[in-house]
């Protein structure tokens, strides 16, 4: 068994141990810094929630089909709820930046298609071209071109609002 240390030395060593604990907690509670973005980088957030067009057109039920249905379900028109998937193409300076095809949400696939994507891009002036297809045939039916100058750290949001005519680019 080793000889006990003199009391003053023990207290000093305890103080050092407490100080070491405080130093570890104090340091790692704020450091090292976390770099989430380069010094000359900006951010593009593509985010929208949009319902595609109905995938199938309504049709009229014939008498035999109606007879098979419960009396309270005998609607003359059969309108399937399923919607088409939404396809988005986003180019930056003539180069493809992001492509996505998003199915509608919901068990019946009748909900909105939701897209969220955060992209890091170089800061500076850029030409963006956005296209969207939401019909059953997959043809592009919305597009927008825009030139934006982004400062480092700046966020540009690319939204899609049918009421506003399609793509909306908002500088943060």
């Amino acid at each position, binding site marked *: 068994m080793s000889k006990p240390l003199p009391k003053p030395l023990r207290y000093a060593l305890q103080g050092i141990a407490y100080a070491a604990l405080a130093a570890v907690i*104090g340091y790692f509670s704020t450091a090292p810094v976390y770099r989430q973005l380069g010094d000359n980088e900006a951010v593009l957030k593509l985010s929208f929630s949009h319902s595609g067009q109905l995938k199938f057109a309504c049709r009229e039920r014939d008498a035999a089909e109606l007879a098979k249905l419960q009396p309270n379900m005998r609607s003359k028109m059969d309108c399937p709820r399923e919607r088409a998937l939404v396809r988005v193409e986003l180019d930056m300076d003539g180069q493809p930046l992001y492509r996505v095809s998003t199915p509608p949400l919901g068990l019946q696939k009748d909900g909105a298609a939701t897209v969220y994507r955060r992209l890091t891009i170089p800061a500076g002036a850029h030409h963006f071209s956005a296209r969207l297809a939401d019909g059953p045939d997959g043809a592009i039916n919305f597009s927008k071109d825009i030139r934006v100058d982004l400062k480092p750290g700046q966020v540009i949001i690319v939204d899609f609002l049918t009421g506003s005519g399609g793509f909306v680019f908002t500088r943060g």
Partner: protein
Amino acid sequence: MTSTASTSPSLGQRAFLALEKIFNRFFGEHLNPLYFLGAVAYFLLWIVIFTGLYLYAFFETSVVQAHASVDALTHGQRFVGGILRSLHRYASDGLVLVIALHMLRHFAFNRHRGFRWFSWVSGVVILWLTYASGINGYMLPWDRLSQFVVTATAEWFDVLPVLGGSMARNFISNANVSDRLFSLLSFIHIGLPLGVMTVLWIHTQRVPGARTNPPRPLALGLLASLTALSLLKPALSQAPADMATMVATLDFDWFYLPTYALIQQWGPANTWFLVLGATALLLILPWLPQRAASRPKSWSLALHPDERIIAVRAGETLLDAGLREGLPLPFECRNGGCGACKCTLLHGEVALLPYQASALSESERAAGKTLLCCAQALSDVEIDYVPQAGAKAHPAKRYVARVTQLELLSPDVMRVFLQIDGGATLPFHPGQYINIVLADGAKRSFSFATTPDTGGDIELHVRRVEGGRFTSAVFHSMRVGDTLRFEGPLGAFMLREDGDKSIIFVAGSTGFAPIKSMLEHAFHTGMQRRMILYWGVRSRCDLYLADLAQQWAREHANFSFVPVLSAPLSEDRWSGRTGLVHEAILADFPDLATHQVYACGSVQMVQAAQPAFAQHGLASDDCFSDAFHLAPQRAPRGNNAEMVQLGGTHV
């Protein structure tokens, strides 16, 4: 036979032992923080909760005011709010650190398996709830770090199929963030810590004798060091959150947020796999296979001065087993550092988990000392210890029983059958006894006379003692249907089933009762060891169940019965052995080195027999008797002397 084996420490154990050794030099064994990690976690949680209550009183739950209110608290009341905010953060960081160390230590010392699975699993839950609380807390000041944390959290959850991108949309611009978010975050920041406290309480309830407060000097030292840190480096907010921009770098809390760095580097889906995989691994750790050699079993632990026998669960230390039963075992560090839990190993084999050499010297080990907190039973074990000063032992369980049958076996011996109220069966070890509690609280001890294996009523053999209050009542006024109060089971006298030596049972008078219990148990379990019963009484009529013993001898080839009368009457027409029972044994077995002896009877009988047996080669480890507990092996300790009287010889 006593034996203490040491387990060779693993790498993790060696690391902890080395660190603890250094800390023992600094703090002493009684204040070593590594021995109080669970209690320190509690203490830090209390700091977090009390400082949090103060901060909450000044926090504004709105987009515009959240950052400003925290800043005002930090700078406007520098020496109250500022310090408390810093303490809140640093104690939270310390909490994660201490919980992780606590779990790592238990893992390193293999204290997460078997019955400890619940504590381990609840510990994992506490760890994640603590993480969730801390991460949630970083959302509240609504600074750049809050912006990062809410965005990353939303992006992380959005990868789940149900959400599919809708959550992060709430944070894409400043316009999307409303005051209601802060009400929600505050609500969560109260709910999650409440969850931590609830699970922590459950976690602690499962640990016998768990300490929830560290020693005061240690608590003060921790509080002082965190306060000094708060003064030197106050916890500050970063710039206010602004969804329109992202800063390149963040002052990052690496205690709480490393997962968030991974979300950015690996992507949300991969981080989910990692976190869920790590959680699943942590949760199944207690059940992962281990080496067969180290797989523990359950054993019995007989304790003096409690005169109790308790079960030791597989992998449980003797200390935990005793504390679980409410016994006043001495302890402090519980980690083999301080030596406060030292005891004497009287019988059996234990394996010692790694401990500090200063806690138990080689010479102490050689003298039969062991550490309760590190000793795991490798056989049935018997120990003697000095109870913790001032600690109150839980009394033995008390029962009310009804007399179901009275049978006069001889003019002086009554067989009494008892049934516990409600029909419950009482688990006990063959050789143990109960105390009948009289109306004035006085107690009378009687051994169980049946094997516990078959259940049924409790059987006692009560010998008439002239002038005895209880025994007189049994013979004169007791009727079937009467009720009795008793406590038990008690006594550390039990059959050791782990040896292979021949057994000589020595019964004196109603000392036959516990021997009958042991023999019936041995027959029930099919014990194949050679067993000889010597029953010593005065005259033939005292051999009140001789027919039963003779029947055993006919039915079991490995058993024989030798009755010995010390004062046969002429009408006995006795042609068998006469004299003192121990002399008859010595005549038959001049060398007792290969035998075990179980003796029950009057103190005089065993006091005469024990030295004579020892002179004929009987090892002290092979001699078992309750009467020996009175003398000469151990001196009687006050009232305990009454408790070890056997066979109904006490009045």
